[in-house]
């Protein structure tokens, strides 16, 4: 019930924002913030209360809520939460709050509709992380898409319409292929179980395939949808455009959360529903992951547009996710979950910084920046933290994540792992280039020196910094939370 409440609050809050802002334009953001905070506190409070009980019983599923939705087709409204979902939900609402905060002043027109879209996107993402009925999952998968499209298409930069189309059409293509795959799975399951039609995840887990070809095709339907979102290299085309044209909060959500839904989908659905089929393509997936690591890093190094640069670093970091997932090792999978969290925080922070710079300098071109440290030492120092996180400095979260992934993958394929590690060198290249170009060097002629961080911006950056350092120093709570799911997954896929 608490999960329904959580999503419901976001949906209702979004509508209220829209209606209230017609009359009082500034109230919208306040309502949005309150709604996200409540949605954040609900699962956290619940978890604090019951966490200890669960480790005793050994049951992975913390909440399980199911009611009939369209019984004629075996569709139910089934929400459930385990450790993995809980971690993802936590990230969703943390970044959700920050995205409301960072659009506090940036969005000046049509605020009501803006926050409506923001909250509905968050609701869709939260839904994706807890839906345990494949129809419902697809439903939420699409629900997060439409408001995101509006966020980019209305409040984006100059080339926003092109970017919004591209984003929508890429993801929708994948989504529809997934829908076909879901339907195929649904009928195969029904055939085996004497016409018991159901979309329920737990029921479909028992599906067995009599031939590998069918299983592989269905698996590919799912996988394509997820790797488009992730993104995997030949399908990453939409990402730089969408990330660079979106408003700051949009980039934050895209990089921090939307990409994670792809990774979550692979872990939750592809690996568990099709263990054999995914093992059969594992090597190729790892290869493409490594290609993504190197290729993304090289492209990032070549960019002059700050947001595009950060966008390509995402391609590179998500390559690690693909590498780790298809290694099927417990340690690598734990690294993947860590990577999802830390990448969400660190890249999100970099996008927020890029947004702040753009607000002050009205440009994203790093050739027109330089020497900003003297004017904004605080921002410079914070940028340093996240740039270091992005290149994988120990003590910061990303290091733990990438280290675990490489350790797990090494057992499976030493060659690929060595190439991937070389990718880390490239990440140092592009990361340091950000610092050099933006904060060091000659001060460019700006009519008046830009102001340093405001109190609101301090709150945003401080919470992100605290999170990334905490994850770097003491990742154990996260690892413990997902332990149950990951261990089971690694066992069944080995």
């Amino acid at each position: 019930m608490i999960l329904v409440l959580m999503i419901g609050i976001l949906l209702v809050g979004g509508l209220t924002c829209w209606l209230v802002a017609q009359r009082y334009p500034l109230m919208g953001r306040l309502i949005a913030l309150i709604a996200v905070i409540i949605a954040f506190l609900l699962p956290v409070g619940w978890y604090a209360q019951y966490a200890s009980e669960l480790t005793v019983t050994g049951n992975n599923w913390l909440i399980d809520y199911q009611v009939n939705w369209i019984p004629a087709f075996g569709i139910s409204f089934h929400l459930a939460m385990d450790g993995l979902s809980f971690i993802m939900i936590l990230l969703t609402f943390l970044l959700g709050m920050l995205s409301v905060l960072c659009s506090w002043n940036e969005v000046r027109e049509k605020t009501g509709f803006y926050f409506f879209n923001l909250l509905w996107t968050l609701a869709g993402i939260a839904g994706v992380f807890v839906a345990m009925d494949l129809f419902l999952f697809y439903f939420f998968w699409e629900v997060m898409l439409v408001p995101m499209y509006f966020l980019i298409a209305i409040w984006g930069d100059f080339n926003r319409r092109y970017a919004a189309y591209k984003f929508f059409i890429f993801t929708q293509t994948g989504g529809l292929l997934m829908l076909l795959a879901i339907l195929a799975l649904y009928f195969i399951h029904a055939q085996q179980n004497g016409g018991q039609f159901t979309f329920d995840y737990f029921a479909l887990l028992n599906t067995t395939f009599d031939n590998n070809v069918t299983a592989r095709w269905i698996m590919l339907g799912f996988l394509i949808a997820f790797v488009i979102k992730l993104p995997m290299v030949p399908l990453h085309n939409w990402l730089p455009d969408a990330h660079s044209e979106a408003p700051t909060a949009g980039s934050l959500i895209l990089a921090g959360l939307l990409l994670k839904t792809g990774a979550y989908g692979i872990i939750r659905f592809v690996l568990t529903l099709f263990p054999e089929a995914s093992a059969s393509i594992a090597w190729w997936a790892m290869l493409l992951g490594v290609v993504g690591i190197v290729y993304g890093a090289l492209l990032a190094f070549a960019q002059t547009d700050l947001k595009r640069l950060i966008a390509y670093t995402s391609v590179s970091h998500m390559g690690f996710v693909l590498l780790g997932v298809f290694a099927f090792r417990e340690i690598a999978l734990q690294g993947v979950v860590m990577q999802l969290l830390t990448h969400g925080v660190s890249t999100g922070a970099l996008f927020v910084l890029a947004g702040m710079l753009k607000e002050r300098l009205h440009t994203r071109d790093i050739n027109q920046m330089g020497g900003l440290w003297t004017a904004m030492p605080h921002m410079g120092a914070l940028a340093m933290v996240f740039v270091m996180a992005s290149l994988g400095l120990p003590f910061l979260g990303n290091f733990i994540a990438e280290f675990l992934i490489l350790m797990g993958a090494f057992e499976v394929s030493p060659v690929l792992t060595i190439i991937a590690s070389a990718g880390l060198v490239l990440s140092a290249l592009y990361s340091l280039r950000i610092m050099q170009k933006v904060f060091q060097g000659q001060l460019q002629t700006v009519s008046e020196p830009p102001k340093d961080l405001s109190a609101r911006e301090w709150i945003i950056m401080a919470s992100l910094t605290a999170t990334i350092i905490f994850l770097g120093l003491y990742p154990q709570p996260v690892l413990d939370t997902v332990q149950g799911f990951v261990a089971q997954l690694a066992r069944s896929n080995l």
Partner: protein
Amino acid sequence: MTNLQLLALLPFMVLATAAVVVILLIAFKQSHTVIQVTGFFMMCAVVLAMWFVRDTLPREVPPLLVVDGLAALFTGLIIFSVLVVGLLSYIYFEEREENPKEYYILLFLATLGAAVLTISRHFISFFIGLELLSVSLYALIAYLRNRNNAIEAGVKYLMLAALTSAFLLFGMALIYMETGSMEFTAIGNAITKSGTSVLFLMGIGLIVVAIGFKLALVPFHLWAADVYQGAPAPVTAFIATVSKIGVFAVFVRFAQAIHLHENALAVTVLTVIAIACMIAGNVLALMQQNIKRLLAYSSIAHFGYLLVAFLSGDAGVGAGVFYLLAYSITLLSAFGIITLLSTRRKDADELSGYRGLFWRNPLMAAIFTVALLSLAGIPLTAGFPAKFFILTVGVQQHMWLLAVVLVLTSVIGLYYYLRIISTLFASPPLSPAKEKSLHPLFYAATYTSLVVLMFLLAWLGIFPGFIIDNVQEFLVIR
């Protein structure tokens, strides 16, 4: 004819009376408002009559008619659509035409034609219904005779419809020659006994051509864009919904009776047509700048999707009905917006006129956006479960080719729906003030009904279960 048979036909008799009542009203009191309100109540009376006779179904009225669950469903859809079209017609014609009274006679006659199609089980009633529908439509399409496009559209429709009537008659004659009967069921029995001959197949082919023309299936779709563009907006809505629903209904009944799905050749031909519809409709719509033409091409694509349900046989009928329901609500709300925005001189069909509508008139733009999202099949709107059910039956019958084409072409479709939506949300030009001359009550009524339609779309999108169950219940009545 027994009393019960007569009773089962009550809704259709009320519908026929509606046309007569309008004629009489014109003789006594020439007021648009009176006619409009009377027409509205007559349609409500049809719905009431239907509810009143629901227990007597199913009832055969040999040799021509049968009133069963399928007929009730399709007639219900038709009456529902006509109610909305009638409402839209008022504000549309009150602004333009001095004397729009005959319009309502034609509208109700065409509706009667479509309704007769849904209950026909015999070639004669099939043909009468179709002609009643077409002949009324010739006049309806060209009703605003001062416009160039209207005359062009009317003549185009007239020529092609006359031609297809000839095709239809020839096809019927061939089948009659082979089987010796004009009743659908008797034809079905005859061919199960003696098998299909070449002439019989030719007859079926000719009938499919005629039906394909009415449903604007590729390659018989050439009239669609011009007629959609030239006809007055409410009439376009009528063509897109009522006339297609009627023809589809008779096609379903005919195909069921003669076991069309067991004939490999027919299935192949229809599969090719369905794929052609989906591809051609979506591709042709891509670059359209005229919304009415765009909706014409999109409706071609949508009937391609509907054919997927049709090809699934009996299992697909429920999905097809649900799809038609979602599609009618969606199109009616889209055409409602077009009607509301149209001015005295011109229909609002240029895409550029919609620029920034959201910031000028959020309510209208919201309704239009929901309608477009529903056409694109995005969740939370009725279009999504509709498309989902079609895919479900398609996959169930292992029609993988059709399912994959459906999915891929919907992605193409997405592009042009998004194009309209992003136009709606673009920054507005300096907006021309729109003159409103009518009584605000009618605007209020139209707005209310459009908002109701929008909520229906959302309701169907989120809780389709209720409707699906009811549709299945009705389909059992046969």
